């Protein structure tokens, strides 16, 4: 039975939406903030309750929104028994934690921030348990790592908090990476990333040869998240977090995510030897080890942390057994552990809050001062110990029962014995929690005078204790939830009966041994503790830090070897590596025979080629003389423009020659402020090496070019040629591609160009406000200055050129759609005309006559192009769809108007603005270099009489 409901995505999104609120509401006070944090959780919980009846009757609620169907990624949610159980736990405990944190956090803590993180985490966690797409699940999985990092490191001023958060992120993040690999393999085997599809294909997956890698990778993710040995060490360090975080993340939610995942994947992954041995061994080892360490921890929270590790091990072990009954026990214990452990964490928080210490050795006898807290703590701890009539007893019995008939490698004793040992240790540390904190004689040396907290603070743990007792005495109340959740885990239709008395079974004896043994251990705790503290044992944090330090050191050595601060080093590595890759590709792939006949080489082309090669060679030889190199660069650019003309690319030729002009101007301007010569620095051997690299690179590229030039190919250009006139209304196919077929690319490109222009402007601003400006002022440029800086001929010539060049620019722009030209070229042509004014009459003079800001021009260009594209939306067409029509105004010949022309106008404006802004920025330096501003357009103006007088005559 499957139903669709739009409530499910709303439930998933609610915490994220809610996370926007607390940060704002904190201004209205702490209680208001907590209330508004509780609100989205409460709404989600109500919605969940609406869906619950369907699920409890065995149905599944599903909903799917396509996101990136090409990647198999969809926003798909489903709610089955297991999801319902976890979602209810996450939201329910979230609500209790919100209440508890309201009283726990002090006035100095930024509470709004805390609640934002909490809701983010809650949303991520909720996402994991109701995702129906494993890619989506992975996203939420990583989100829990990130948001828990924020929560654990919430007390930023504490170094332990920061280190603990970093460790948790490193360990769970690394596991998450492994899991991504495993999940992708799984999706690949199943042919779908939808969880429901994958769950149906258990047999195919288990039979696949990729099963084992996928299993190991996914288990790595689950084990790191659920703090299983040997990754258990991060959890105790994460206890540096505020107690509400520990109670939420480390009892109920985040650490259970790994267990959840194993339960979720149970139908697919379990039932093999590999699963049985890996999961049950890791689980059992973790359970015993965690319990053992917990017994000797003096910090209340550390004790609880290791006890959590131990109980997570128990759950893992149960899931590892792979039987239906073990799954039922696991599901039941998930509920029970949640209730007593969250209550215990909150109790520890209360004790810490009221007595200002969590050190068990400094506590004891608190029952007299804080009876309510003591009662809550005792009930929860007895449940953790597994004493009858508390819920922990029920699931522990079921666990022992399962352990009693499980054998490893044919040995029937080892599992029951170790499981009993784990239970025994669990009893011991639970009793220690009661007797060493609450019982015993009252002391008079508590750091603060203890008393019970306000009702709001103990309400949450008290409620949990009521649940502990309720389930413990009347186990059948939990039966419906356990039934659907266990059925969802196993995929079978189970009808477990939860009861207190199972008769005289092996589990009963194991339980008795555990309780008695635990009591004995507590009695001799003092000498044991001394022995434990003296015994040498590996410290996980030291090992972890050494590992991280080693990895960081290795990374530093590698990057320092490759990246030593000299750009030439890694450019050389880059060039050689690229050529090597290209060579491998060529020799690996084989080569089809040449199919194209060579075109003849006319004498003009040969002459151009000689000029180009000659100029290039001269640049290499003469590059130390920078001015000469620039002149030669101009020659090369000219030859290339000529080549484009000859090889049927008129648009390229126009663009190349105008860009060439602007580039040379730019470089000349820059060279003015830079040294005019490069010193000879590299040794001959170095030059030889660089030469060899250069020849290899050039040879490689030339060979590659020759290879494809002599072979035919198929291209998509046929489409463009066929549709340019019909669809785009232009006969210049290159222009139609730019403004129509690939308009989006062009749009991006003009934005990049605009950004480049603005970047240069910003760089210049920063530069001229720094020490460089002083240096510029101090430098003497007078030697370079011409006596006749604004020559008469040039001024007059450029003035006459301006309208002509503008007209040519507009002409090129207008005809661009049908003949070579267009916005790019027109923008460049007009900018050259304007630049000539700057050159002729100087920067200052021209600047005062400028009416339009170049920034604005860039902005308008991008806006016009964007609006033209967006206008297509008004007609229900996709972005940048173009249209065109023909207009006939009587005296003029019929002409065409295309919307692409408006787009081209945007291109034109952006190019013009960007080019002008770039050169404008550069020439502004000149002002700082002490260049005077001339009032007149030229130095010698024959039309003005006073200019005839020279300064010398004045004197």
């Amino acid at each position, binding site marked *: 039975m499957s139903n669709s409901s739009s409530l499910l995505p709303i439930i998933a999104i609610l915490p994220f939406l809610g996370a926007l609120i607390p940060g704002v509401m904190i201004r209205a006070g702490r209680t208001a903030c907590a209330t508004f944090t509780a609100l989205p959780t409460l709404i989600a919980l109500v919605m969940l309750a609406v869906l619950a009846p369907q699920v409890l009757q065995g149905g599944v609620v599903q909903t799917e929104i396509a996101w990136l169907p090409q990647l198999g990624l969809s926003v798909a949610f489903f709610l089955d028994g297991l999801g319902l159980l976890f979602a209810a736990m996450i939201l329910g405990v979230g609500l209790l934690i919100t209440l508890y944190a309201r009283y726990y956090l002090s006035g100095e803590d930024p509470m709004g921030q805390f609640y934002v993180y909490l809701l983010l985490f809650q949303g991520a966690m909720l996402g994991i348990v109701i995702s129906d797409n494993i890619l989506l699940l992975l996203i939420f999985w990583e989100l829990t790592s990130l948001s828990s990092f924020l929560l654990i490191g919430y007390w930023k001023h504490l170094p332990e908090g920061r280190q603990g958060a970093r460790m948790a992120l490193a360990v769970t993040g690394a596991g998450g990476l492994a899991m991504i690999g495993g999940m992708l393999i799984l999706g690949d085997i199943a042919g779908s990333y939808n969880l429901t599809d994958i769950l149906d294909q258990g047999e195919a997956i288990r039979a696949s040869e990729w099963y084992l890698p996928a299993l190991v990778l996914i288990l790595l993710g689950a084990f790191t998240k659920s703090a299983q040995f040997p990754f258990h060490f991060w959890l105790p360090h994460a206890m540096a977090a505020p107690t509400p975080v520990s109670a939420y993340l480390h009892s109920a939610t985040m650490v259970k995510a790994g267990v959840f995942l194993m339960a979720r994947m149970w139908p697919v992954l379990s039932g093999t030897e590999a699963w049985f041995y890996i999961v049950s061994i890791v689980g059992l080892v973790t359970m015993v080890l965690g319990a053992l360490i917990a017994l000797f921890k003096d910090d209340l929270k550390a004790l609880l942390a290791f006890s959590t590790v131990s109980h997570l091990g128990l759950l893992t072990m149960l899931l590892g057994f792979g039987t239906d009954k073990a799954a039922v026990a696991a599901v039941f214990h998930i509920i029970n552990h949640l209730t007593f452990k969250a209550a215990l964490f909150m109790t520890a928080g209360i004790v810490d809050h009221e007595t200002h210490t969590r050190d068990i050795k400094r506590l004891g006898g608190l029952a007299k001062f804080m009876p309510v807290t003591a009662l809550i703590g005792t009930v929860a701890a007895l449940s953790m110990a597994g004493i009858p009539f508390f819920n922990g007893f029920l699931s522990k019995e079921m666990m022992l029962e399962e352990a009693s008939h499980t054998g490893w490698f044919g040995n029937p004793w080892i599992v029951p014995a170790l499981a009993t040992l784990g239970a025994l240790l669990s009893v011991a540390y639970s009793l220690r929690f009661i007797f060493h904190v609450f019982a015993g004689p009252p002391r008079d040396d508590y750091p603060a005078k203890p008393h019970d907290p306000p009702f709001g603070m103990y309400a949450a743990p008290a409620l949990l204790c009521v649940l502990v007792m309720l389930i413990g005495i009347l186990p059948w109340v939990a039966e419906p939830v356990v039934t659907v959740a266990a059925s969802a885990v196993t995929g079978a239709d189970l009808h477990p009966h939860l009861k207190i008395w199972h008769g005289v079974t092996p589990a009963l004896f194991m339980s008795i041994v555990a309780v008695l043994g635990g009591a004995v251990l507590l009695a001799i705790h003092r000498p044991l503790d001394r022995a434990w503290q003296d015994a040498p044992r590996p410290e996980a944090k030291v090992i972890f830090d050494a590992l991280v330090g080693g990895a960081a050191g290795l990374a530093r050595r590698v990057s320092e070897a490759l990246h030593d601060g000299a750009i030439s080093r890694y450019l050389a590595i880059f060039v050689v590596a690229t050529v090597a890759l290209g060579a491998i590709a060529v020799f690996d792939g084989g080569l089809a025979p040449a199919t194209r006949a060579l075109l003849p080489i006319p004498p003009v082309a040969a002459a151009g080629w000689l000029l180009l090669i000659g100029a290039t060679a001269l640049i290499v030889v003469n590059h130390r003389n920078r001015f000469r190199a620039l002149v030669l660069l101009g020659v090369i650019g000219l030859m290339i423009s000529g080549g484009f003309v000859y090889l049927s690319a008129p648009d390229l030729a126009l663009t190349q020659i105008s860009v060439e002009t602007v580039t040379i101007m730019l470089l000349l301007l820059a060279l003015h402020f830079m040294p005019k010569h490069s010193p000879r620095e590299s040794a001959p051997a170095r030059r030889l090496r660089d030469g060899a690299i250069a020849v290899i690179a050039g040879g490689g*590229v030339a060979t590659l070019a020759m290879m494809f030039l002599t072979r035919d190919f198929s291209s998509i250009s046929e489409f463009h040629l066929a549709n340019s006139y019909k669809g785009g209304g232009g006969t210049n196919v290159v222009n139609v591609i730019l403004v129509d077929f690939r308009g989006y690319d062009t749009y991006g490109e003009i934005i990049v160009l605009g950004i480049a222009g603005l970047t240069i402007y910003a760089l210049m601003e920063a530069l001229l406000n720094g020490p460089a400006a002083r240096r510029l002022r101090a430098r003497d440029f007078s030697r370079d200055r011409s006596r006749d800086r604004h020559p008469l001929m040039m001024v007059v010539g450029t003035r006459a050129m301006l309208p002509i060049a503008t007209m040519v620019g507009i002409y090129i722009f207008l005809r661009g759609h049908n003949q070579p030209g267009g916005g790019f070229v027109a923008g460049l042509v007009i900018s050259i005309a304007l630049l000539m004014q700057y050159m002729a009459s100087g920067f200052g003079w021209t600047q005062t006559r400028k009416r339009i800001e170049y920034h604005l021009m860039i902005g308008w260009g991008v806006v016009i192009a964007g609006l033209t594209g967006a206008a297509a939306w008004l007609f229900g067409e996709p972005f940048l769809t173009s249209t065109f029509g023909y207009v006939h105004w009587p005296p003029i010949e019929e002409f065409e108007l295309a919307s692409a022309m408006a787009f081209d106008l945007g291109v034109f404006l952006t190019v013009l603005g960007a080019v002008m802004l770039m050169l404008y920025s550069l020439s502004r330096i000149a002002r700082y270099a002490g260049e005077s501003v001339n009032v007149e357009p030229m130095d010698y103006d024959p039309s003005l009489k006073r200019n005839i007088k020279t300064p010398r005559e004045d004197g």
Partner: protein
Amino acid sequence: MEVVVASSVGVLTAAGVYLILRMRAFPVIIGLSLLTYAVNVFLFSTGRLAINAPPVLNKYADVPYSDPLPQALVLTAIVISFGMTAVLVMIALGAYLEADHDRIDMGEDEAEAAEKESGA
């Protein structure tokens, strides 16, 4: 003609690579410009060479056309590479004015200073 184009691309690449391996900012910029030419011509030539066949549609006759797509790509590449060169020139100029030399590697003392900064 193919040999002419391929060899030009090769020579421009070789000269460009040699110059970007120099130790001063200006030759590196010149080298980068040469590489830009090489790359643009290379990309252009992926459409294969054709003479007297501009991709401007002829209404009156059925004539061959050269491949317009690489041309469109290279056209924007030319303009963008101008923007890139300009930014680079600006950075080089700024670095020169700030540091009073236009070496592109770190000198011994600068490397030490950077080391200290990252260590601190």
